[in-house]
């Protein structure tokens, strides 16, 4: 057995080593800020390795480093850097300032990278478990806070439940096709005509359940609001972007490669799920009082929109999905960054009513929140609109005009609760004196996300071309 060519694996290997390095350094270094800086440096190193490195398959198809996975890895690294930025000050205030926080983040990102480039369901499962386990721990990081415990418990139990379904589906597919490699499955299914065999259908649907859980799609979304509300805000930000994007990466790869030609059945199921997701996300968010819970439902709704890209299929559909997730990462983490800024000594700042009159006391912060809220709604000058526009373009191109109309109406409904925040900030008089825990790192994060949202909104061709090029390698 010649030494397998591991050059495409360099980014993953580097990430693993740096994660362990951060773990060790945590013993030596007292000031946790340095750990955070090292985490970001490691992210940039991996970023460089990603671009500099070689593309291609390794380990006979188990590891695939193509445009598709690189694009998703970029999203993961961006969310890692931004979350680290906003959590430096936050975990200091919460007095839970341990180095393990950053190493777990790195491990979770490693898990996502493995998932994104998994060409084999076994590797996919292991990557998913690696990511999930680290996020379960991160969710429960505030050991003293019962809400954080409850969040991690719920996420863990339901996560294990869903991964059991995933395993059962894998065993079923293995039984049917004798292999777990995605390309081999597709090839086998095509040649042996067991497409509409009930067992295949069962396994495909179980995959839908498992991945549906991961991206918090409608019937499997119940865990998301409680976990997002309970977990530390920075982890919530991380959870709402990283694992969700990884879930979509896997969803895309498994369904478009392995079950490519079963498209007619699973699309028929995914459309109602997408509509249900958008409905649940948008409608329940209206009556929320806790901002983190509202952003949780909004994140569910955005999963629904991204699913439209998946349903449209084809290179346009996948590209629009990827483009949307890229933009979604920025606006969502930006919004959470502002929520974090409100968390100061002795002031939770999670209720929407805490935002009353913010424009008078902190005009810059409220202006940024305004930009993010309008971007999440999808109002033109912001990136949110470009993301949604590309999705609808792909949907109409694939013939789902009515789905685009439904999605458009839901995004109009979403305007109501996003504008409620703007209304509270600008149109109400401030109750008490609100002071923000401004820190340089959160400031940088806000600056990066805000400029990204506005620049992509005005000059979107950069991201769109990147997404399109990425799909070519699919």
């Amino acid at each position, binding site marked *: 057995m010649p030494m397998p060519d591991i050059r495409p694996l360099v980014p993953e290997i580097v990430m693993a080593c740096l994660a362990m390095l951060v773990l060790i350094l945590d013993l030596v270094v007292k000031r946790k800020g340095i750990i955070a800086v090292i985490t970001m440096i490691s992210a940039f190193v991996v970023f460089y390795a990603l671009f500099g490195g070689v593309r291609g398959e390794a*380990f*006979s198809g188990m590891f695939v480093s193509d445009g598709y996975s690189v694009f998703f890895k970029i999203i993961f690294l961006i969310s890692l850097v931004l979350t680290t930025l906003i959590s430096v000050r936050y975990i200091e205030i919460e007095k*839970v300032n341990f180095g393990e926080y950053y190493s*777990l983040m790195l491990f979770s990102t490693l898990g996502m990278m493995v998932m994104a480039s998994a060409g084999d369901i*076994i590797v996919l499962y*292991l990557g998913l*478990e690696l990511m999930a386990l680290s996020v379960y721990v991160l969710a429960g990081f505030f050991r003293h806070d019962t809400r954080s415990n409850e969040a991690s418990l719920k996420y863990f139990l339901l996560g294990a439940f869903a991964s059991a379904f995933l395993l059962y589906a894998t065993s079923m597919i293995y*039984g049917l096709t004798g292999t777990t490699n995605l390309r081999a499955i597709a090839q086998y299914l095509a040649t042996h005509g067991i497409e509409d065999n009930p*067992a295949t259908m069962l396994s495909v649907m179980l995959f839908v359940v498992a991945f549906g859980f991961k991206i918090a799609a409608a019937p499997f979304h119940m865990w998301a609001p409680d976990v997002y509300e309970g977990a530390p805000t920075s982890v919530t930000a991380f959870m709402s972007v990283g694992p969700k994007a990884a879930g979509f990466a896997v969803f895309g790869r498994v369904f478009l490669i392995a079950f490519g030609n079963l498209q007619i059945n699973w699309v028929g199921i995914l459309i109602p799920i997408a509509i249900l997701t958008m409905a649940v996300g948008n409608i329940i968010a209206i009556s929320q009082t806790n901002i983190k819970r509202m952003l949780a439902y909004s994140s569910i709704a955005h999963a629904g929109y991204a699913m439209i890209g998946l349903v449209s299929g084809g290179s346009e559909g996948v590209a629009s999905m990827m483009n949307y997730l890229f933009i979604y990462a920025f606006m969502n983490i930006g919004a959470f960054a502002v929520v974090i800024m409100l968390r100061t000594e002795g002031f939770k700042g999670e209720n929407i009513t805490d935002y009353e009159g913010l424009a008078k006391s902190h005009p810059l912060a409220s202006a940024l929140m305004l930009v993010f809220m309008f971007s999440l709604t999808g109002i033109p000058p912001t990136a949110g609109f470009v993301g949604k526009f590309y999705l609808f373009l792909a949907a109409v191109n694939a013939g789902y005009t009515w789905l685009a109309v439904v999605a458009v109406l839901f995004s109009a409904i979403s305007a109501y609760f996003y504008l409620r925040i703007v209304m509270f900030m600008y149109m109400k008089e401030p109750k008490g004196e609100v002071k923000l825990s401004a820190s340089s790192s959160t400031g940088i994060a806000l600056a990066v996300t805000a400029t990204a949202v506005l620049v992509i909104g005005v000059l979107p061709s950069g991201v769109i071309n990147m997404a399109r090029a990425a799909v070519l390698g699919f």
Partner: protein
Amino acid sequence: MLAEGIFAYLAAAIIVLSILVVTRRNPVHSVLLMLLLFFHIAALYLTLDAEFLAAIQVIVYAGAILVLFLFVILLLNLKEEMVVSRYIGPWPLGLMAALGLLFMITLSLRSFVAGPSGQITAALIKTETHTKVLGKILFTEYIYPFEIVSMVLLVAIIGAIVLAKKKLRS
């Protein structure tokens, strides 16, 4: 004839034991019954000539995981456990959902057709011993997932410490 007899016994035992595990009021009884269940599953693996897995099953599952469970169960105050009802309020809903899934799975299993057969025949396993064959494949073809599992185990350790250790210095 003998093989069918053994399989029938093992299958029946596994099903009965799993139902008992799930329904016992006292968690300690559940853990012990689970131990018995794992031994039967190990035996089943032997009938499918997967000796190494049977050994792993006994050592890791029965030995390590159940011991962990036992420790945590001893933390609970059992008296209070015995009094309160063991099932949640709407338990028939859960049961119905499970049975519905069962019906679906059996419906689809009926027309199950097995995939292509590979080269590692039962005879080869007998000659080369199961552990050697598994080890060879594990460290040649599946080295990449093996490394990922090592990462998973590392995260498990970190997680356990972060969550359960009494006082973490900060």
